[in-house]
């Protein structure tokens, strides 16, 4: 691996910039994501910055069960984030549509529309779980830099498919 790629891996692992997108969430997960940035959890020690513009971001944090209204905006935002990018689904809603399952206003779950890299389950998940998910997504970005150039990294892989299907089954059983 060349020196430039090594440095690039390091940079991607150490500097995950987030863009937060609410796709019809109840605000619970959004509050927990903000809590992860506050002094108690201090996401900045991992290099995390909540970016106001999707153009600046590396990782899109999506909360909510993806309503039909939010779907178009979601796809726009996903397209606006430059490659390489990763998607973190925050909460049980984007993973499985949670208690809103089978609702006619929903287009979810999230991975029907865009590839998801990390699922952070919970209703809402704790801030430390969100931080772990973000760190995992940054690691995935770094690993992609090892194997591909930025332009090739266009189709991200879903890494925790098993976790997601388990959760869906769990919700359906309820």
């Amino acid at each position, binding site marked *: 691996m060349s020196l430039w790629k090594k440095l690039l891996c390091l940079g991607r692992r*150490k*500097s995950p910039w987030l863009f937060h997108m609410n796709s019809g969430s109840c605000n619970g997960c959004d509050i927990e994501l903000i809590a992860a940035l506050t002094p108690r959890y201090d996401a900045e*020690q991992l*290099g995390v910055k909540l970016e*106001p513009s999707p153009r600046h971001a590396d990782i899109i944090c999506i909360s909510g069960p993806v309503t039909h209204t939010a779907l178009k905006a979601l796809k726009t935002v996903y397209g606006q984030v*430059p490659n390489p990018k990763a998607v973190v689904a925050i909460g049980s809603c984007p993973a499985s549509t949670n208690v809103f399952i089978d609702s006619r206003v929903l287009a979810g779950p999230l991975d029907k529309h865009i590839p998801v890299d990390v699922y952070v389950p919970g209703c809402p998940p704790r801030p430390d779980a969100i931080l772990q998910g973000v760190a995992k997504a940054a690691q995935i970005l770094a690993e992609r830099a090892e194997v591909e150039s930025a332009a090739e990294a266009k189709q991200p892989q879903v890494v925790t498919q098993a976790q997601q299907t388990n959760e869906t089954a769990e919700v359906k059983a309820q």
Partner: protein
Amino acid sequence: MNLSTILSRFLVFPGLLFAVPAAWFYLWVERKAMAKMQRRIGPPFMQPFFDFLKLMGKEVPARPGFSGFLMKMWPIFSVAAAAGACGLLPVIQSGAGFNGDLILLLSLLEVPSMFLIAAGFSSRSLWGEIGSAREATMNVAYNIVFLMAVIGIAVSQQTFSLQALAQSHGSILRWVAVLAILVCLPAKLHMNPFSLTNAEQEIYAGPTTEYVGAELAMFELAHGLEWVAATGLVAVLMAPMIANPSAAAAVFVALSLLVVLVLTGIAAGTARLAIDSSVRFYGQCALILIVIGVSSALLMRMKL
């Protein structure tokens, strides 16, 4: 003044080779100090460098046409201007200055902000345009105070040469002017309470909303270099005369860091002001300093 002195000033110290790592260091100091004041741990030491690396490796979407070309060029021009401003600072008494380099320094300090305004408009983003309009308004407001403060110093010493200004001994007038410059720096560096330009979340990212990857990395670098040049200007005006080059450099860096910490403290303790309050602050409150400064400069000159 020969070519090698000029090149060493612009390329080594306090130019590119010093200013680029210093820019990242100052950005880190600002973020870390802010974190400490909010009882957080804060980013690791190399964070601005990691951010730069990562941004350089991002894909930039193809933007056809002349505005796409301009969007590539503004960040590079900004870096060049800010690095040039750093190179002009008379840290070491090498005799490499020329009469009138103060005017060049002031104009180079203005250029990154001008290009930021142009960048916002050429990105054709609504948020970029709002950010640019705000930056233009703030520019007019704080520059009256900033330029008058510098002119006050220059008039009292009867010179536009930075080297001569740095070597002349300070008077009370000098401190009034330095205070006025310090009042302007938060607006110049887009810090709270005058962070209207890039008002995070409020208008997305302001003028840089549409900028991606390497372009954004260059804007961040230009911002860091602006930090070095602007705090360096204050440090040069405050620093006592020191003949030993390494001691002079150490005092320069220490004073710059002090200014960075003071500005961070102000930013941590204040909230963002609205545009009318900001302009009124510079038009009414800060103007008092300038009236005192310039009038006493003219009186000193009459006495001389």
